[in-house]
């Protein structure tokens, strides 16, 4: 009798495993789309980058240990500190929490994988290839050397003629694909793929944080991507966006960069806060105090973080009243941070805290991050920032915030979730020693550097001078820096040793209440043998028998009769079962596409534009193969989802996962477009040498084409959608839509005829706007052709019209941006 549940569970595992398992051998590494595998590889890759960035940090400290060091000349040193910042921000901090999220999120939500498994794989490979390129550039001595925020004109071709800057601009933009991809996945996964009954107010708090972070990534990265794009256009084609004598303005870059750069700080901090909100209550044997308040704090932090980018620009001569606004917002952002800090301390008071290793790191976080937060408030004071800006005070502040506020919680997370990652409990006790080394090393390195900054030590100087009064501080910082490095190395060693040789642990050693502890450890490829039903935030506390029930298939989809990868999609707010999502098989396409994409991004470094275009065609072809793989050629109707519920497959719902993915991708795209219009308005109002000498004449043809194109494209796809749902054949209507998109493209093309791309920043901006419209009309046109092919091949029916909905979304977006973009381009001509 007691064996029976185990038998059922084993039988279910034997049925599920072949469906979800990887390809055998080495090939499996490249074709896997499974979140556990990709998460693990991603964590290893990001840890490798942390080591690389750490080695550069050691070189910096070696150089600054004594006055007038001849260890490195400025040319090398400038590459070292630029790459230290770049690696730590773009190749370690963001990827590491993404990796952790890819790994943990499906388990926490009680689902089988992330929403778009192939996108996980593509994002990971883009990251890995891009990171490798950046490291190779460093080894080859052509790494970027203008500081990690790349201010023009220093980064313009006149002052940085080499390929160093191009590698940064194109390489980082390429790597950001992985951030955008992961963000789309996280949003759609949290909103649609959860345990049944996991309403929004029962989400594990980490999922809330990651939802907020993902939306922030989608809205913060695009300005930076746009900035990189137009700076690269300036460098390659002399389009003068940042050249004052031709109507450009180097401040535009600073706005675009910090519109990204400051939210990014919170993009890095919030996952850490999410980790603490998960771990700290468990360590205190209680539940989080003020769940709703903490969610509200995370959301308001996200909103406020978009209103304070100018505090990086307090010394650029912006009027004081303008600065006052941003100063106020910069201090206001400390309020939700304070709410979270006190909610955590209150949670500790409420419970009975125990000093396990993860808790130790969280205490290290408190001490360090609170100090970093307080110095953050100081530099938010405009007058003080005028002194502290670009000195070691700021360097020390940002290391307190990033290491204390991010790295320490991430180490806590690794130790806390180690049983899930490796299936083992910690055996060796090196971790405590490592902790104290890191704490002593960290504060020894950075505490007194605040003081050195106030004594006039500028950041980025390539050596210190005798008699400056900072020699002692710097020697202490360098020695402590090496202690810190040894501490971090011990942490990594400790984790590695424990991962490989410690004893097998039992499930849920911390007695936590969330679902990632409900699966056998380490988790199987399908994560959950059936999708559970939950009734609170801590389902394992309500029902300790839940893991067994899941394993026995008592949840949804616990009977894999259809022999394919299926998971359950739920309604957004109430988490009721809505449809069955069928996940893709293992595939080499994401890896292949990442390789071709890397060629497309890196070819322009050497001005190989032919190769760039060829690989762009390759990416397009691969993307079409990718999209072709989904779907079904027959109507399946309602399918048994278990527990007496029947649901349609995702191919037979109006808004399939692809529609949701497109929606959030277009959110990011829309922010990029908005940033472009912001740049246009900014240049017009602030930049010197405006208005431009010649203004574009709108004429009659362009506007007529645009108006006709919008009507034809939008009406065509709507009528086609209607026809499909009535089982009609919509060739003519789709053809009309295609013609409309062609007209939109042609309308935008007239802008190229009326302007000269390198004459003035005005012309250059119009070219980018028109190019954007042409590009989106082209993408939407390709999608229409793709839809036609899908109809011909039988993938579309009166029940299966989701593809048409996706295409409609992209056409509407193309039309909207054409109206706004071309309107903005023609407006001055109409007014003149």
């Amino acid at each position, binding site marked *: 009798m007691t064996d029976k549940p185990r038998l059922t569970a084993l039988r279910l595992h034997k049925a599920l495993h072949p469906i979800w398992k990887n390809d055998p051998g080495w090939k499996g590494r490249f074709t896997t789309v499974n979140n556990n595998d990709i998460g693990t590889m991603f964590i290893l890759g990001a840890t490798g980058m942390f080591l690389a960035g750490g080695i550069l940090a050691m070189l910096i400290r070696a150089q600054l240990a004594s006055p007038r060091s001849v260890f490195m000349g400025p040319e090398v040193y400038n590459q070292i500190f630029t790459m230290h910042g770049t690696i730590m921000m773009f190749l370690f901090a963001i990827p590491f929490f993404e990796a952790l999220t890819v790994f943990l999120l499906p388990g926490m939500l009680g689902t089988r994988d992330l929403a778009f498994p192939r996108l996980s794989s593509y994002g990971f490979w883009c990251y890995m290839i891009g990171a490798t390129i950046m490291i190779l550039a460093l080894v080859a001595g052509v790494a970027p050397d203008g500081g990690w925020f790349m*201010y023009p004109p220093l980064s313009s071709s006149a002052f940085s003629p080499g390929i160093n800057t191009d590698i940064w601009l194109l390489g980082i933009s390429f790597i950001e694909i992985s951030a955008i991809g992961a963000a789309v996945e996280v949003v759609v996964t949290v909103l649609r793929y959860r345990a049944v009954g996991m309403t929004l107010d029962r989400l594990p708090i980490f999922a809330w944080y990651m939802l907020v972070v993902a939306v922030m990534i989608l809205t913060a990265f695009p300005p930076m991507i746009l900035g990189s794009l137009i700076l690269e256009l300036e460098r390659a084609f002399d389009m003068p966006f940042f050249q004052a004598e031709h109507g450009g303005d180097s401040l535009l870059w600073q706005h675009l960069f910090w519109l990204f750069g400051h939210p990014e700080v919170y993009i890095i901090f919030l996952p850490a806060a999410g980790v603490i909100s998960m771990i700290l209550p468990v360590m205190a044997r209680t539940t989080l105090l003020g769940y709703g308040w903490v969610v509200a704090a995370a959301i308001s932090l996200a909103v406020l973080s978009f209103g304070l980018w100018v505090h990086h620009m307090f010394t650029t001569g912006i009027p004081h009243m303008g600065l006052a606004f941003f100063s106020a917002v910069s201090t206001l952002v400390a309020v939700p941070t304070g709410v979270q800090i006190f909610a955590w301390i209150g949670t500790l008071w409420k419970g009975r805290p125990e000093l396990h290793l993860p808790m130790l790191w969280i205490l290290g976080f408190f001490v360090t991050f609170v*100090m970093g937060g307080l110095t953050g408030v100081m530099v938010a004071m405009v007058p003080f920032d005028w002194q502290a800006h670009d000195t070691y005070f700021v360097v020390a502040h940002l290391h307190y915030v990033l290491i204390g506020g991010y790295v320490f919680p991430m180490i806590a997370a690794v130790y806390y979730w180690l049983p899930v990652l490796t299936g083992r409990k910690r055996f060796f006790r090196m971790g405590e020693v490592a902790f104290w080394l890191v704490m002593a090393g960290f504060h020894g390195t950075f505490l007194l550097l605040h003081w050195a900054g106030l004594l006039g030590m500028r950041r980025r100087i390539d050596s210190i001078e005798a008699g400056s009064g900072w020699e002692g501080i710097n020697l202490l910082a360098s020695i402590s820096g090496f202690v810190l490095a040894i501490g971090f190395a011990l942490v990594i060693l400790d984790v590695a040793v424990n991962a490989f040789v410690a004893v097998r642990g039992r499930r849920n050693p911390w007695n936590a209440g969330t679902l990632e502890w409900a699966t056998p450890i380490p988790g199987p490829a399908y994560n959950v043998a059936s999708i559970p039903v939950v009734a609170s935030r801590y389902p394992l506390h309500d029902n300790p028998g839940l893991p067994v029930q899941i394993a026995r298939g008592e949840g949804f989809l616990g009977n894999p009769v259809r022999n394919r990868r299926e998971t359950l999609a739920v309604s957004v707010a109430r988490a009721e079962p809505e449809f069955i999502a069928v996940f893709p098989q293992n595939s080499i396409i994401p890896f292949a596409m990442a390789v071709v994409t890397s060629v497309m991004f890196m070819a322009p470094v050497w001005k190989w534009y032919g190769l760039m275009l060829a690989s762009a065609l390759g990416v397009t072809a691969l993307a079409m193969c990718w999209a072709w793989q989904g779907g079904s050629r027959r109507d399946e109707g309602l399918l048994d989802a278990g527990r007496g519920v029947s649901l349609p497959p995702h191919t037979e719902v109006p808004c399939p996962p692809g529609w949701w993915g497109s929606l959030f991708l277009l959110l990011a795209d829309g922010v990029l477009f908005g940033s472009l219009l912001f740049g246009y308005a900014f240049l017009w109002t602030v930049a010197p040498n405006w208005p431009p000498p010649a203004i574009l004449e709108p004429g009659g043809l362009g506007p007529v084409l645009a108006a006709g194109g919008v009507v034809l494209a939008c009406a065509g796809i709507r009528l086609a959608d209607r026809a499909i749902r009535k089982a009609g054949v919509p060739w003519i209507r789709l053809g009309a839509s295609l013609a409309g998109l062609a007209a939109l493209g042609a309308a935008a093309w007239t802008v190229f005829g009326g302007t000269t791309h390198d004459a003035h920043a005005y012309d250059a901006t119009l070219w980018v706007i028109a190019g954007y419209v042409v590009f989106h009309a082209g993408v939407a046109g390709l999608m229409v052709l793709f839809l036609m092919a899908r109809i011909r091949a039988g993938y579309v029916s009166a029940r299966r019209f989701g593809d048409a909905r996706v295409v409609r979304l992209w056409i509407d977006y193309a039309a909207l941006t054409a109206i706004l973009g071309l309107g903005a381009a023609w407006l001055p001509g109409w007014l003149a």
Partner: protein
Amino acid sequence: MVIGGTTPLMLAGCEDRLSALHPAGPAAALIATLWWVMLAGAAAILVLVLVLLALAFRRGGGPSAGDSRGEAVWIKGLGLGFTMTVLAALTAWGLWIGERLLPRPGPGVVAVEAQGRQWAWRFTYPDAPGRVTEGALHIPAGRPVDVRITSADVIHSFWVPRLAGKLDAIPGHVNVLRIQAWAPGEYAGLGAEFNGPGYRRHHFTVVAHDAAAWDAFLAGETP
């Protein structure tokens, strides 16, 4: 690259020559005061947080208050009430100080021009047309001076730590910084925005003259 009558060598040995906390003029003094007050306040808040944290461990397993009471104390009281009060006061004070540092027109204000380039500074004087100095900015002591800052190439930043905060030199823009030295003397200045391989050596000196020497400078009698 430093040309002109003075070099930082003359000041070597004086460890406070670049210190923002050894003010030699009203702007730097106001900011230094702001710093010391903020440091004291920050230290007090840090101690408060750490004590609260430590007490959570000392209490052991006492009966815990309900969530709603906890929320009232920790979140509404400390999280919202305490932080907002402290921050509102600080922001208002910071704003007031910022206003006092602005280059407002007034009697006796002297205008000078500073142009940064890779890796030197060039100064001109509307009161003495044609007068150009490289690497040394001459000002009268005891009088407010408005420095009109521009750049010939990339972005730089004009910073004399003992006199005032820094302000950027941006191509195509003119930024005005108010500085003032209490007493005659030489004050070290720095380019404070990274600008390429010569960044470390991007120095200059501010020479503050007494009234007589200033008149002599304008008349072209001193370097």
